[in-house]
């Protein structure tokens, strides 16, 4: 008999084991490369800060950039005020040594390109105005430009001072990304250069054009473009950059619908990259990213329906016995058997949780994360899959009904 649930279960288990083992082997195989390469010279760098109504956070961003441990004569900070309606422009202007440009609102991509046209340095960094860098981040990243083919270097991105449920689960999510981004770098497969403090060779933009202004996730597009043209993207696990994560459901949903829509659009746009010519990225990392989402949605649908059915059945049974909860509970305790809980699904859950804890431990250890985990890990374990699958479903609904995704 064709049992969809069983096939899904076996497929998920095998894939989880395979991916987990493969990523761990890759990480420990390349552990010696976790140290950042030594800097041979200090190239000039322009840091572009696109800002639209960022008066609440830009002050801290600029303070952190000004405090960077880097020769000041080699460092240029450019704020591009993208038609803000608050006092972002005035705040930026109050900083000494910061160039402030202003233009009419045109979106993040257009603001970065505007800054690019005014930048004269050898390297260019993009810095979101809601994030801030650690003092030595730039020094740690620069050494990675050790070959001409390396076009970009990404930092380690963490959630700043996570508070409340939504930021706590994002803190854990970001910490996982720290590890995966490094592993992907080992596999020559980094496919996103995040907005907060990714550094690029300016020559790339001179030769291949600036950021795609129509793209809602320009950081994903630029990374895929770099990879598709046969260049490399590196990562420094030691260069810490902190970002302020959305603190409520509405903001997070909006952010994720934009991100995930961007993933769908860009994966389709760069579908030609799914070939062996693009190495691990083409035959493994990108296909796995797509398959994982499809499987996660299939899991959520299947087990969601099963769970709803169980709840409905349970309710009906309770109705049949006039809701004698105490009687049922007493009976359950009296006849409790651990064997009832040993089944394939619970085994898979244990396996996934074990794998997750190992990955989390490695990420925390090697990125020298000092933040207190608190209840974040527990919350993440039991809610992340559900919440983020729901965000994916929302994104697909946006796509299906061709709704406009807002910033």
């Amino acid at each position, binding site marked *: 008999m064709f049992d969809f649930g069983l096939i899904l279960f076996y497929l998920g288990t095998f894939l989880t*084991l395979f991916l987990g083992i493969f990523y761990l082997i890759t990480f420990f195989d390349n552990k010696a490369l976790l140290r950042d390469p030594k800097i041979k010279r200090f190239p000039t760098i322009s840091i572009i800060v696109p800002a639209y109504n960022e008066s609440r956070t830009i002050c801290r961003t600029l303070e952190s950039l000004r405090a960077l441990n880097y020769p000041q004569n080699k460092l240029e900070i450019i704020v591009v005020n993208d038609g803000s309606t608050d006092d972002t422009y005035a705040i930026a202007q109050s900083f000494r040594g910061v160039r402030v440009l202003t233009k009419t609102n045109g979106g993040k991509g257009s603001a970065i390109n505007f800054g690019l046209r005014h930048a004269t340095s050898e390297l260019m960094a993009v810095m979101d105005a809601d994030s801030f860098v650690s003092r030595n981040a730039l020094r740690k990243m620069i050494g990675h430009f050790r*070959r001409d083919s390396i076009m970009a270097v990404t930092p380690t991105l963490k959630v700043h001072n996570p508070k409340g449920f939504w930021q706590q689960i994002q803190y854990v999510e970001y910490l996982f990304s720290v590890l995966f981004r490094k592993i992907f770098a080992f596999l*020559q497969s980094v496919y996103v250069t995040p907005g907060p403090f990714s550094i690029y060779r300016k020559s790339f933009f001179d030769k291949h054009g600036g950021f795609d202004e129509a793209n809602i996730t320009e950081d994903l597009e630029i990374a895929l473009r770099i990879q598709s043209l*046969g260049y490399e993207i590196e990562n420094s696990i030691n260069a810490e950059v902190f970002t302020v994560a959305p603190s409520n459901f509405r903001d997070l949903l909006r952010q994720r619908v934009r991100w995930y829509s961007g993933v769908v659009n860009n994966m389709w746009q760069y579908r030609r990259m799914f070939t062996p010519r693009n190495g691990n990225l083409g035959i493994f990392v990108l296909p796995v990213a797509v398959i994982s989402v499809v499987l996660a949605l299939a899991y959520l649908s299947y087990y969601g329906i099963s769970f709803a059915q169980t709840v409905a059945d349970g309710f009906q*049974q309770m109705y049949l016995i*006039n809701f004698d909860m105490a009687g049922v509970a007493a009976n359950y305790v009296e006849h409790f058997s651990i064997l009832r809980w040993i089944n394939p699904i619970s085994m898979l859950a244990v396996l996934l949780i074990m794998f997750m804890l190992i990955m989390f431990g490695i990420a925390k250890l090697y990125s020298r994360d000092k933040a207190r985990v608190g209840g974040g890990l527990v919350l993440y374990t039991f809610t992340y899959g559900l919440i983020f699958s729901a965000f994916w479903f929302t994104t697909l609904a946006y796509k299906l009904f061709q709704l406009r995704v807002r910033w």
Partner: protein
Amino acid sequence: MVRRKIAYRNFLFAFIAALVLFLSGLFTGQQLTSWQVENIKRFEEDLRTSLTSLELRQTLLKQNICGISDLGQFSAELSDLGKQLANLESRYGKGDNRILELKEPYFLLEIRHYLLMQEAASRCGRDFDLILYFYSNDPKQCEECDNQGYILSYLQEKLGYDQVKMYSFDIRSSSPAVQTLVELHHVKNAPLTVVNGVRYDKFIALEEIEKLLS
């Protein structure tokens, strides 16, 4: 343009390691199930021996079943066996052959126990309720069987095994003894419940059954 590598060696190693772990997991699961099935078989064997002993004692006492004081002690064990079977059934499905095989001897044990209890009730005036419950494992044949079974199990738990002796039978069982019982009670459809000798050929709610009990 950089030459891109493919990590064939690590892919292969991860694949083999994952396969070994996956197959070990499958094997462990299989062993665990076999162990549970064996456990139930042993349990059935023990119960069969105990019931044979009871029957022999009855014969030795020249049919005077009322002289046996520990007559009721196997009700809970029989019920426990039924629960273990139901538990396995919920995990592996109602059509699983291993469970269907385990059920046949269980039905025979139920019949033997039922006959002893019926004898005790009529000869010694023992004050307990006897319930026969006929169900079908095929949900198409019996939509209400799960609900009826749930109510009856609940009642037995609530009132205790000494008070309620319940025996459930799958009307599709291939056992001639079960089929004889099915014929004796004119079972055409499930659910069918016989409470203290009174036959109900439809679903009965909790309150109705409670009214019928002593």
